[in-house]
């Protein structure tokens, strides 16, 4: 629970909707909240994927990602782009990533998101993106408030830390 005792504020603009990119905003937000920082997350474009009630569909993309080196068959391997284009490869890589996350004691995305909600992290979804993608707010977590760029700016202007992920 953030009690704001150190009077610091942080905002993060969350724009990415993949399993790996879901981690930085939720880790930083939950940790900042536990350090008594008042946090606002603004989810826009693909970042809104992270606010769907069910986030089991989140995947990593192996395509064009030479930095993704995973332990496989006793070594570390990157995925050649030509392999990444085969249907099912991302799903397979994502399920491997999820099993590694579990094995290494790394928190799951639903777990981190739940801690953010419990810690009073303010979660703002971009109204324009919802309209653009034709998503009903009903498929999103109830803690999501809707707002726009001005809502974000009002928070950002008062913040000590503003990040874009």
């Amino acid at each position, binding site marked *: *629970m953030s009690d704001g*005792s*150190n009077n610091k504020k942080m905002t993060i603009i969350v724009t990415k909707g993949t399993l790996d990119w879901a981690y930085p905003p939720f*880790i930083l937000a*939950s*940790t900042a*909240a*536990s*350090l*008594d*920082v008042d946090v606002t997350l603004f989810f826009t474009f693909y970042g809104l994927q992270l606010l769907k009630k069910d986030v089991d569909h989140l995947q990593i993309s192996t395509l064009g990602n030479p930095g993704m080196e995973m332990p496989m068959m006793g070594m570390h391997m990157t995925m050649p782009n030509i392999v990444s284009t085969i249907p099912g490869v991302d799903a397979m890589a994502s399920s491997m990533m999820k099993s590694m996350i579990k094995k*290494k*004691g*790394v*928190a799951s995305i639903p777990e981190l998101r739940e*801690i953010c909600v419990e*810690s009073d992290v303010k979660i703002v979804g971009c109204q324009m993106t919802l309209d653009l993608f034709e998503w009903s707010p009903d498929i999103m977590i109830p803690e999501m408030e809707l707002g726009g760029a001005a809502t974000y700016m009002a928070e950002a202007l008062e913040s000590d830390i503003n990040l874009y992920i």
Partner: protein
Amino acid sequence: MATQTLDTKGMNCPLPILKTKKAMKDLAAGDTLEVLSTDPGSVKDMEAFCKSTGNKLLSSGEDGGVYTYEIEKA
């Protein structure tokens, strides 16, 4: 003797800090929390957590890969 013990062994960053924060909520000022962790990163993280929240890190130690912290609630 710590008022309460929190076992975060096997958990990775940032879970030890998040669980510590949660456990501290149930304590009164002056109570102490003992935290056990196997995350080597928790050494610096626990110092940073205490510095930012004003809680006092009474002791910090390691034995056989298990880090033990004693924190007094401010």
